[in-house]
């Protein structure tokens, strides 16, 4: 029966519409399976899954303040998710967004604490320094990978730990707030702080920059030569080389942009929210962003949506834990299961599409 349905659909739709339809069906199925499996977990923990899900939704969208909090949370995920998506597209498995976030945060802090200028100069300065620091940090494993062919997955992973400890050293050591007792740096000068968009919330201008960069990335991949080169190198570096693309340069640019975008996430956290560097400034945004990028299938515009989805799950989870007593880590399980289902269903998608093409 299922086969007949597919046959009918594939004859009715033209190729493009059929592909989109199949993709949509698969994503919806993946979500359903993920929620079903999570419900089993929740039931096993002795709660009603519907209550838990409703509580998450209430927690996330219950009040305007919470909804702005979602965007606050989504900002670093968008930045880092974009960075990761670009790297993955270009064939560089960048697991090091977490470290690049920390480096961006460190650079922005140093600029913001040391230099006191008007916002018109200082804000671009912190943005650029965050981008540069993240990009250069990514270039270390990047060059090792491109030049010597060393596995970047483990390199970037190890660099994360080094970056986290460096940030910890900076906030405990040389830049420690002389007036405070907490292990954190002094507050940034006012000029380095990103303006708050909506009064009495924490929503800062970083979200606007994130959305702008999303659109920019979308256009780069849709319209420009650079986007084409990155995709070609990622798909097959050897044929890209024979096609006349400078693989080395393209890879280096890809990696630099990727790290830089993740660095902006750190800059946003420092200059938009905390106004100083402190321990654990990124609670794993770099890893969540990988999942965001995978869920969005490395597509710039979908990253916006995926980041907002994950941020709302996160905000909802805290509320849910307080009201139902179910640990908030259930959200982590939901996220992982959704992406596992999507990854697992890719073969189905490929098979269905091949069938259509063969006809």
């Amino acid at each position, binding site marked *: 029966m299922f086969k007949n349905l597919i046959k009918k659909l594939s004859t009715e739709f033209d190729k493009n519409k059929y592909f989109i339809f199949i993709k949509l069906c698969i994503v919806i199925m993946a979500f359903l399976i993920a929620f079903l499996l999570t419900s089993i977990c929740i039931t096993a923990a002795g709660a009603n899954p519907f209550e838990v899900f409703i509580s998450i939704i209430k927690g996330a969208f219950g009040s305007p303040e919470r909804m702005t909090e979602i965007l606050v949370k989504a900002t670093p995920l968008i930045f880092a998710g974009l960075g990761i998506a670009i790297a993955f597209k270009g064939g560089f498995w960048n697991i090091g967004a977490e470290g690049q976030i920390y480096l961006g945060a460190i650079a922005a802090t140093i600029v913001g604490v040391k230099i006191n200028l008007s916002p018109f100069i200082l804000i671009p300065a912190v943005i650029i320094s965050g981008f540069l620091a993240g990009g250069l940090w990514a270039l270390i494993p990047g060059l090792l990978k491109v030049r010597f062919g060393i596995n970047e997955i483990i390199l970037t992973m*190890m660099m994360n730990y080094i970056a986290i400890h460096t940030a910890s050293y900076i906030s405990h050591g040389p830049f420690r707030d002389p007036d405070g007792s907490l292990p954190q740096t002094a507050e940034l000068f006012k000029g380095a702080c990103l303006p708050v968009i909506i009064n009495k919330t924490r929503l800062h201008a970083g979200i606007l920059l994130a959305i702008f960069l999303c659109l920019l990335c979308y256009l780069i991949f849709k319209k420009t030569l650079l986007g084409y080169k990155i995709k070609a190198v990622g798909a097959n570096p050897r044929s890209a080389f024979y096609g006349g693309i400078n693989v080395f340069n393209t890879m280096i640019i890809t990696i630099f942009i990727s790290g830089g975008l993740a660095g902006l996430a750190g800059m946003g956290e420092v200059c938009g929210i905390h106004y100083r560097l402190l321990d654990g400034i990124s609670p794993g945004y770099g890893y969540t962003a990988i999942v965001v990028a995978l869920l969005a299938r490395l597509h710039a515009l979908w990253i916006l949506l995926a980041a907002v989805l994950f941020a709302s799950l996160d905000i909802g989870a805290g509320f849910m834990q307080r009201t139902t007593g179910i640990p908030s880590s259930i959200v982590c399980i939901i996220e992982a299961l959704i992406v596992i289902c999507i990854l697992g269903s890719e073969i189905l998608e490929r098979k269905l599409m091949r069938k259509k093409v063969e006809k």
Partner: protein
Amino acid sequence: MLDEILTATFITGLLAAAVRMATPILLTALGEIYTELSGILNIGIEGTMLAGCLAGFIGTYYTGSIFCGILWGIITGGLMGLIMGILSITLQANQVACGIILNLLSLGMTSFIFRVVFGVTILPPNIKTLTPLPLPIINKIPFVGQILFQQNLMVYITFLLVLLSSFLIFKTGWGLKIRAVGEYPLAADTMGINVYNIRYICVIAGGMLAGMGGTFLAMDLGMFVDNMIAGRGFIALASVIFGRWKPHGVMAGALIFGLADAFQLRLQALGYNFPHEVLLMLPYVLTIIILTGILGKSHAPAALTQPYIKEK
């Protein structure tokens, strides 16, 4: 400072600790050798270790027997390996992506299960730890005996497994089959080897060993905290590359990491006014230096990360 470090007791203590701390990494890395030789890069071993760690902890907590705990850990690790296998072999999904997701899943699952099982407690729950089991006679050898032969049972088993793995991989038909599948699956298939079966067996065995490595950590410390593997799974991955997919080389890599870890802990304990963050970075910096290939290039299994698609 130096005269405090260069004493016999400090050095023997340090080396003994290094052997103990290398054990979970070594167990996991041994498992990863099988997995990678068969052509699957399982980054999810970090999560597999974490799952094994919690399973071992809960198993020991409820049955009261360390042996049962280890068994639980191994079975859980095997299940994680099976998930990885289904995703990467049968469903042909991207192995790197699958590994990352498995880590995330495990992080969420362990934290969730731990809280559901134990609730929010003021005092963290404890289990009994592995006791040292000095081997008769040879533990009396000065230095060497103290370092190598006064460890617990799991350490001995791990180092026996190194010998066993060497033999299995390089001297038996099984090992040849595994390597063939990882190098040139199409040729192996033509020769009548079932590529899928070999890969499934390897990825599950790798998961079991990683699960065992995770349990070792729970047994060694007698407790469980969120994300307590803290990158040891990734260090195991690095030591596989360091050891060039050979059990003996991998053992050397794991021992170096164990040494760096033990050294950093001990220097901290001595209480010098030295930025301890630098010491915490030490194992990771070392990994990068080693990976940069100062010790020469290595040849990875040719079909690593490539799913095998059988022609009809």
